[in-house]
């Protein structure tokens, strides 16, 4: 492992100052459960790490109809948050099976997104919930939809000096149900495939639907064509079979050490179908 300096700024201003001085040679670090592993593997070789853990502007879980999560919110705290378990079931289910207790005790929501693994468990639930990412940097702030945040495997729209300030999850309307499912050898593993569904039901008909799957494309993916096939219809066994086929067509998985493209394709259809079923049931 290459040696690195380690800075612990207490304000964003201080963090940006450190980053601008070492631009291209330094990286931000949150909980470190991804960054430190990649430094050890020499996948990245930063000369300095700038810890975001001690910046109070990046902390806190705030409810105001929706949810505003400071990027340094530790996953274990989100797992224990009653409001999240009640209103954003898919997100809660994802956090509960992300890695293992030791990792969840230090890993953060912002870190999980900034790491931008196509398999990131928090991504599909946040995509279907319509989450936005509040970005801040030396040049100012901006808010981007999570869908526009991921640009490739391990790639985001962050410019290297910017940080995620918060994740904004809008409140859900009445009749909404969500679900998250993950396929792995054991649930704590990196997902072979993961999937989330959100449906808004009214009088037995699906008024709105959002679907997302992970580890099936270069970025966590919204399945917009499949969504269209559900909206305005009753969720019958025939419709579920139809969306299974549509989801299979919409993903573009690869074969890697974990599993094959074919398995991912078939199982993404299965998981999406089951997630819709569970979300519809949760919607009542």
């Amino acid at each position, binding site marked *: 492992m290459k040696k690195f300096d*380690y800075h612990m700024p207490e304000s964003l201003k201080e963090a940006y100052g450190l980053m601008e001085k070492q631009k291209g040679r330094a990286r931000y670090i949150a909980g470190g*459960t991804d960054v430190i592993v990649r430094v050890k593997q020499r996948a990245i070789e930063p000369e300095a790490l700038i810890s975001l853990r001690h910046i109070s502007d990046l902390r806190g879980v705030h409810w105001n109809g929706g949810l505003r999560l400071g990027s340094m919110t530790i996953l274990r705290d989100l797992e224990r948050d009653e409001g999240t378990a009640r209103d954003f079931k898919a997100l809660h289910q994802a956090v509960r099976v992300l890695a293992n*207790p*030791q990792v969840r*005790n230090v890993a953060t929501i912002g870190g999980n997104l900034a790491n931008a693994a196509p398999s990131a468990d928090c991504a599909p639930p946040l995509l279907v919930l319509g989450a936005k990412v509040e970005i801040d940097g030396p040049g100012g702030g901006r808010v981007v939809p999570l869908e526009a945040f991921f640009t490739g495997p391990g790639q985001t729209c962050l410019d290297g000096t910017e940080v995620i300030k918060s994740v904004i999850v809008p409140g859900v309307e009445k009749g909404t149900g969500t679900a998250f499912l993950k396929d792995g050898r054991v649930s*704590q593993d990196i997902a072979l495939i993961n999937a989330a569904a959100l449906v808004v039901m009214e009088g037995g008909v699906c008024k709105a639907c959002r679907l997302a799957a992970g580890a099936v494309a270069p970025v966590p993916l919204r399945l917009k064509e499949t969504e269209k096939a559900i909206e305005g219809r009753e969720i019958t066994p025939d419709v579920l079979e139809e969306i299974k086929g549509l989801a299979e067509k919409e993903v573009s998985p690869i074969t890697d050490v974990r599993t094959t493209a074919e398995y991912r394709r078939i199982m993404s259809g299965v998981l999406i179908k089951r997630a819709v079923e569970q979300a519809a049931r949760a919607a009542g």
Partner: protein
Amino acid sequence: MKKLITFTLNGYEVSAEVESHRMLLEVLRDTFDFKGTKPGCGQGECGACTVLVDDVNVDSCLYPAFEIEGKSVTTIEGLIDEGNKLHPVQESFVAHGGIQCGFCSPGMIMSATALLRENPSPSDGEIKAGISGNLCRCTGYVQIVESIRDAAERLQENAG
């Protein structure tokens, strides 16, 4: 880059000069000579290096040493009472054979301790979830789960 860090280690305030690229695991083993905490995969998969930081279990192999400033760290050595009496969780692992080669045991026991602190009477499913970040390659999981179930009872008897 070097820095003097001060933290609480097994109840005692300690200081050490550490390099910025060191992890907590290295500080515990090499600076303080506490070899109970084991280096395993180095990637947060196996849990052999599990310690408690401010009472929650973490992988010390991924915990930057500088971040330990002002925090409280408990290692397997710190579970033993004054008078060299084993902690109830340790006693249970001995009594139920929750150990074979012993390499995973310190990490397992630290995760079990963290679990029981938060959830004093876990179900078997909750025990398995609680140690899901700790691998045992001797496949002694049955006895490990039994040990933790027994530890829960011992701790509750002690408390009540």
